[in-house]
């Protein structure tokens, strides 16, 4: 290692004092002040910031809920009801937390679809995408654990069904399931450890989010044109431009989430979860949280236990290798006339799978789930790698600035460089 580099000088002596000992001021200045953002980024590029803020909201509301929660099978349900009725603003904390989770997933799904549509996962941002899929996996695990804690009927039976997935693994499955549960059925040992893990995993997510953001800042953000930054003219500074834009996006999100919290706090909740857990009675219709429903639909579409479990995990893990399945050099679907429509169809397919995942697995719903499942995998393993054989991509603009200057497609009056800056 070489010695410390020459520290930056600031007017404020306190900042100088800190910077000399820990160059954190210049780091933030570089990453969140001067950081160059492509100037053609649309509002889809605000969803990463929104997701980060929601993570903080979830952690803060969760800590305050934990102060009033008892992770014991005899008391968990009652402690949540006490939180709702007796604790000051307890109802608000819980509704923020439960609806915050749903909005967290909405925002992250849009963030992911943004990444897919504009090819943000491609070279040189593959690792960034992989870190993102890790965050998504951790989110799914955390939300599942959290859903168990109120100890209602859906909590109990959701936990039973999901942990039984592991028993499908040949040879070690049953032992693994018992090890996860700490008992032969979902019981007090299970609830206790689920609470411990639900508390700690968000901090793991926070750490991976740190890496995810650091990684995207190495090569810079992608943009709707999917082309690299060529000069300073292609960018604007993060502060104030993107900060203000993200703030406006956050305000809109805040209005939406408040509307749900205050006017329809239970619209995404399952009624059965207000019945205390009963190990002897399974609810007639078990449903997962809607944000995990597409994968539940895939699980149930297969009439074989192991097969369903394998396909369900495969449908999530395939995301990891997407950067290598899609072999086109063109990132943005704006310049891929054919793939664009298959991509749109994939989004719709994912939505439909989510819908049938919430319906009983029979008749027409089962048929739709199976068709949706086939398209899901065809998209990844056939369309993405091989569409290049028949697709003729459009010509890419020479630079991001050219998006505004040439073609007259997006803006009618060409701007001069000075005006843009």
């Amino acid at each position, binding site marked *: 290692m070489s010695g410390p580099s020459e520290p930056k000088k600031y007017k404020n002596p306190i900042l100088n004092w800190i910077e000399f000992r820990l160059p954190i001021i210049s780091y933030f200045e570089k990453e969140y002040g001067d950081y160059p953002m492509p100037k053609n980024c649309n509002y889809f590029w605000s969803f990463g910031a929104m997701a980060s803020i929601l993570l903080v909201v979830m952690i803060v509301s969760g800590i305050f809920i934990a102060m009033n929660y008892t992770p014991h099978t005899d008391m968990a349900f009652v402690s949540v009801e006490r939180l709702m009725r007796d604790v000051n603003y307890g109802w608000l904390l819980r509704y923020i937390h439960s609806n915050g989770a749903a909005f967290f997933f909405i925002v992250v799904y849009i963030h992911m679809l943004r990444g897919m549509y504009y090819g943000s996962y491609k070279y040189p941002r593959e690792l960034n995408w992989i870190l993102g899929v890790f965050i998504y996996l951790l989110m799914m695990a955390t939300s599942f654990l959290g859903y168990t804690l109120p100890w209602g009927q859906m909590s109990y039976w959701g936990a*039973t*069904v999901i942990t039984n997935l592991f*028993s499908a693994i040949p040879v070690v499955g049953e032992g693994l399931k018992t090890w996860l549960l*700490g008992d032969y059925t979902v019981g007090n040992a299970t609830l206790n450890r689920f609470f411990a893990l639900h508390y700690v995993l968000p901090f793991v997510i926070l750490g991976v989010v740190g890496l995810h953001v650091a990684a995207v800042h190495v090569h810079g953000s992608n943009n709707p044109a999917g082309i690299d930054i060529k000069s300073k003219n292609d960018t604007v500074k993060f502060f104030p431009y993107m900060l203000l834009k993200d703030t406006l996006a956050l305000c809109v999100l805040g209005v939406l989430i408040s509307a749900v919290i205050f006017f329809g706090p239970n619209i995404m909740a399952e009624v059965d979860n207000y019945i205390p857990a009963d*190990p002897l009675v399974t609810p007639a219709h078990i449903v997962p949280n809607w944000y995990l429903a597409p994968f539940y639909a895939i699980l*149930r579409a297969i009439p074989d*236990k192991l097969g369903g479990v394998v396909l369900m995990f495969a449908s999530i893990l395939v995301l990891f290798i997407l950067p290598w399945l899609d072999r086109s050099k063109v990132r943005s679907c704006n310049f891929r006339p054919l793939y664009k429509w298959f991509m749109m169809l994939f989004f719709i397919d994912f939505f439909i799978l989510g819908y049938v995942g919430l319906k009983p697995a029979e008749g027409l719903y089962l048929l739709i789930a199976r068709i949706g499942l086939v398209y899901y995998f065809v998209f990844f393993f056939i369309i993405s790698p091989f569409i290049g054989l028949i697709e003729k991509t459009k010509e890419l603009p020479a630079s991001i600035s050219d998006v505004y200057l040439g073609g007259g497609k997006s803006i009618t009056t060409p701007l001069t460089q000075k005006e843009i800056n």
Partner: protein
Amino acid sequence: MSENPSEKRRDFLQLSTITLGAVGTAAFMWPFLKSMNPAEDTLALGSTEVDISGIDEGQSITVKWRGKPVFIKRRTQQEIKEAREVLLTELKDPAKDVNRVQKDEWLILVGVCTHLGCVPLGQKMTDSKGDFNGWYCPCHGSHYDTSGRIRKGPAPKNLDVPEYTFLNETTIKIG
């Protein structure tokens, strides 16, 4: 590189240090992982004695054993006949009905679907009993027959038969 004896020695030291460190870490993880398995009090085998004198023919009761529901059904002649007449080749998890009961009338089963662990319907008179007149799991649509064998749906195995003994004509001990 390795011509120099001191470098060879260094390689050996490096390798043995890493190996010892890895083995030590793995050994240290064992108690932590093991602590997540069922505790001694959980393992302590529970058994339940059940009075079955009040169960009429065709009726069925549910009792709790080791946290799980156990179905005790007094089968009708018709149900026994149905269970006996099936060809083994038609079964997904072939098992003879005679091997699943101690007394023809009494069918005792762990009431946990072998698919993903839900409790199948069929215990109450008003419940759906599925296509084979036994039990039906509402979660993912598995059908069981009058011997608790899987006949249709995603479940891979028949409903488990727990260990039990008849203490006398009207009492059984499960476990």
